[in-house]
């Protein structure tokens, strides 16, 4: 556990022991159009259960990545803002210390890992995640023969009673790793792209090694527009957002998104 004792200095920018690799993502909000390509790409890559109508109505739909939509202002000066949200792979993850069986832990590459076969389904982690990035399998899958055909053979089909969340497509990381190793080469910047990153038409999402200062993601993370979501919680996320640019922000918009009149809309 990395909670520093009071008054003690600690460098939270690095995982426990660095191995020169810390996976991270930059989300440029000025590019995102809300097109949902990333959402479907994630479903296709990660064998996520189908969100059938009654699943949605029971508020148990699973989306490892979702696009939150915030209303801002009043008609006709109304605006809608899109915020892609997924597991932030916190270096100081609130979900980790509460797991009684260590099914979720932080690995040395900066990934917040969920070990499915260790998970016993207490759902403590989901309750403790400030980003609502975790989803619980309330049902066993009931797939038709046809629907098994497109399952990704590199990803477990989770069973009932297991917690799941964005993995940064760890299967793709591992694959690129051993493909490079097979050719006796080092992993290069740009080798690994999670499904959402690869699909995104606007290049909103950029993935890479934050510890490699020459990587695209590390350079973008230095952009003057950078910030982290819920930064003041001290979760020290590996996902860095770049602020949306709105030339008229100071004229029409309130200081923060979601005018009070509409803030209930997202928290029904």
């Amino acid at each position, binding site marked *: 556990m990395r909670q520093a004792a009071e008054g003690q200095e600690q460098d939270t920018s690095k995982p426990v022991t660095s191995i020169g690799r810390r996976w991270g993502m930059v989300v440029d909000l000025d590019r995102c159009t809300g097109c949902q390509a990333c959402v479907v790409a994630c479903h296709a890559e990660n064998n996520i259960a189908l969100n059938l109508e009654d699943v949605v109505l029971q508020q148990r739909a699973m989306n490892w990545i979702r696009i939150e939509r915030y209303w801002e202002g009043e008609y006709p000066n109304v605006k809608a803002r899109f915020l892609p949200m997924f597991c932030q792979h916190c270096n100081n993850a609130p979900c980790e210390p509460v797991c009684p069986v260590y099914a979720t832990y932080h*690995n040395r*590459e900066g990934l917040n890992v969920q070990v499915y076969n260790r998970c016993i389904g207490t759902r403590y982690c989901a309750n403790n995640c400030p980003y609502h990035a975790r989803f619980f399998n309330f049902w066993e899958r009931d797939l038709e023969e046809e629907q098994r055909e497109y399952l990704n053979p590199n990803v477990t089909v989770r069973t009932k009673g297991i917690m799941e969340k964005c*993995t940064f497509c760890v299967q793709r990381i*591992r694959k690129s790793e051993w493909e490079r190793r097979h050719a006796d080469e080092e992993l290069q910047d740009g080798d690994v792209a999670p499904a959402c990153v690869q699909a995104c038409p606007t290049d909103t999402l950029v993935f890479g090694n934050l510890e490699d200062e020459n990587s695209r993601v590390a350079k973008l993370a230095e952009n003057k527009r950078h910030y982290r979501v819920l930064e003041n919680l001290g979760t020290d996320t590996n996902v860095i957002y770049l602020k949306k640019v709105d030339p008229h922000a100071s004229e029409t918009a309130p200081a923060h998104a979601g005018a009070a009149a509409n803030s209930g809309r997202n928290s029904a």
Partner: protein
Amino acid sequence: MTAGAMRITIGALVVVFGLVIMGAVAWLTLSAEGPEQPIEFMHSVHVEQNDIDCQFCHRNVETGAEATIPAVEQCMICHKVINGENPKVTNPLHVAEIAKLQAHWENREPIDWVRVHVMPDHVRFVHAAHIKAGFDCATCHGDVGSMERVKQVRSLNMGDCVGCHRENNAPTDCTICHR
């Protein structure tokens, strides 16, 4: 004895019983002969007697995650000529089994082999990485070449994998094997 204690005893019994069964299964898997297959394929005939390389059939083992089971078409590369009509094939068992293979080819019907090494769904195992690191097929699979019916020789459970990874200084992060 109170009802509560009774329940605990029964619970304990169930657990013990379960463990015994699991132990028995593990023991059976490791010790007994391998499972019966739809075609009585003999590794001993192919490897020991005819000196065919593992990779001739399991073509992906050096480059892919799966070693792969050969396609019927590949079996037929040889068995077009090595069959009952060939005077050198005399053993009636062999003739009969090769005939089954030919039937699959002619009917274009895949063969459903019975898996011998079953890995749980949450395990990622990459054959190529292990071959690249210099391991022999036999390290995990035993001397398949001499087996008539393939059986599992190593437990291949998590302890087995982690132990070997530790000995060889291979990574032991959960995400290396768990997916």
